């Protein structure tokens, strides 16, 4: 079974597939330019010392975004692991 979570709530090491990007305008454009589109597999690599921003891996590279930006990205989280 799998569930949809905003990227902000994902744990370090967790993997998932982007289900929806709920933002438009400049932020939506930046997120998509960087390849964070529905269907993309991502993995949370870690978080900065104050738990924000978050670092993720996707399409073979690493990307960082702020938690309030991660809020707009819904991810279907793979169960098991950890």
């Amino acid at each position, binding site marked *: 079974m799998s569930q949809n979570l905003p990227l902000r709530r994902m744990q370090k090491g967790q993997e998932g597939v982007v289900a929806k990007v709920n933002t438009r305008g400049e932020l939506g454009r930046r997120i998509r330019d960087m390849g964070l589109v529905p*269907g993309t597999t991502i993995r949370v690599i870690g978080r900065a010392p104050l738990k924000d921003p978050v670092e993720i891996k996707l399409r073979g590279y690493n990307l960082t975004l702020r938690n309030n930006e991660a809020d707009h990205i819904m991810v279907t989280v793979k169960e098991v692991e950890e």
Partner: protein
Amino acid sequence: MEPEKYTIALAGNPNAGKTSLFNALTGARQHVGNYPGVTVERKEGVAFYQDIPIRVVDLPGTYSLTAYSMEELVARNFIVGQRPDVVIDVVDASNLERNLYLAVQLLELGVPVVIALNMMDVAEQRGTRIDVAKLARLLGVPVVPTVARTGQGIDELLEQAQKVAERQEPWRPLVISYGPDVDAGLEELTRLLEGGVPRQGLVDARWLALKCLEGDQEVMDLLADYPELRQKLEPVLKRVYAHINSTLDDDPEGVIADYRYGYITGIVRRAVETKREMRLNFSDKIDMVLTHRLLGPVFLLLVVYAIYQFVFSASEVPVGWLEGFFAWLSSTVEGLLPEGPVRSLLVSGVIDGVGGVLGFVPLIMFMFLAIAVLEDSGYMARMAYLMDRVLRIFGLHGNSVISLMVGGGISGGCAVPAIMAARTLKDPKARLATIMAVPFMNCGAKLPVYGVLIAAFFAGQHAAMLFGLTIISWVLALLAARLLRSTLLAGEQSPFVMELPPYRTPTLKGLAIHTWERTWRYIKKAGTLILGISIVMWALMSYPGLPEQEVARWQARLAAAGPAEAQQLQMDMAQARLAGTAAGRLGRALSVVTAPLGFDWRTNVALVGGFAAKEVIVSTLATAHSLGIDDPEDSQGLAERLAADPGWGPLKAFALMIFVMVYAPCFPTVVMTRKETGSWKWALFSVVYNTAIAYGLSLAVYQGGRALGLG
């Protein structure tokens, strides 16, 4: 030399190795400038293929080709407007999918493209096997594997580019499907646009239609000139927007991006044999330590500290040479010319002024070298990642940390390279706020002032005082930024979304080119204007001199005095002369304003002189107190004099230290602010803003302290 036969434009994502490739293509035959009106770097050079010179233009590194960032707009306008014969798109083979996003947009535009599949070595190390021939067939353009750092594949790349350029084929835009909903609208819009006007034969109608659907600001502005056409387009656009909004809960723009990535994923699935992209690589393992919750910040502090140690110890010797050289030059000129205004102009105006700028060059050069290492290694992005949460509170960006540190974050930096370093900030408001915050930091030139005042009034507390002043400067810089961000620079923060590039060992060539480019820009831009300003400052502090009878009186006294008195008399004469100059009079006139701060005319003259460069403050203060100081480090005499002066006390000294920390940035900084913000408005604003804050704070310190009975 014969004119270049073809023009190649170099496009690519940041961190894809575009700069290395540009260097490999052009060698030292390149020059750097800015695109008109924007602070986007424009690099151009000449490459040779079989002795045929080819013009190579390095477009700014971008992830996309929209109209929403200066870099992307500059790149797009160059391609559309200048129509290069071929665009070489540098694609990072180890990061193929995201890099192809820009490639696909270039293909949609239709410009002839050759793909440089760069960093093949890294891709192979990671276990990615790319079928190059298949990739070329699927994309429909030549693909040449390269390793730009070693120069591998460069010849073949040039050969392919040359072939494509020679064919001079018309642009052939790539047609892909963006899903049934968008496609239908796209066709309708294309038909409308084909009938009419605005492309002037430059771009394809379908591309314009696509941009309309993406809501591209520039294309919309272009269409505003064609009201009839626009009237026909509007209803179609509205309908497509509404339809996609209701069926897919999205904008056409988002749907188009998703389909583009879908197209790319399809190609990559067929042309790439093995992919292990989710596996943690070496870079990720380094990050586990360097961005660790506890170790990360500790390491960051160590790095910054190491940079300071390196920059200051490495530049000490060459700075000494340059100082020695200018001292020698001064004394030579003094020996060659008779005393008089010409000698004074040359020595105190020109040589001291130019020496002041050039003397800093080694320091600035090593600072830029350190920044280049941070950038090229990939650590710079981690610094931003670590610091963003804190700096965001003050309306700044993670990348602001570099500027604040270089500007004197742990005391002893320089605002000039710090302001130039703010170029790494993409958010224009955060960038301006950073530039405005930098002059609050304790640069190297403020330290001698603190040194004198601490020695005079806070003896034995040197370290504690300096630490305190460092903390105060950080607090003030951050609050000043916050104030601007909630008033003049108010507004939403731009997205942070940032790539963390893999760690790489910087190449010597890359470091050398980066460092030299920036150092040269400093010499060129700062040098010319500062020379003029230092002549003006020299005139202010020399004219009008003493009236002739006065001079005669001093000389009579000097002649009558014994050798012991003569020295003191000469210093008294210098003081009297300074008092009579324009700067001296200004100092007196300002006394009315500065009396509430406890500053007398002598302090005022020194502060006026400090406009030219803060180093001048100590020496001017000494002259105004009838002391001769040649070496600002040797200021024992001044400290003793001030300590003994009944008009001075710790409170006044502290008020002055705060004032010096905060008031108007020095002229080189103002000039650089002008260059980097593109207008005198912000440069003048920083003078007024800082001086007003300095006045307010010093007033509060001095009057508050007196009310509390502290002095």
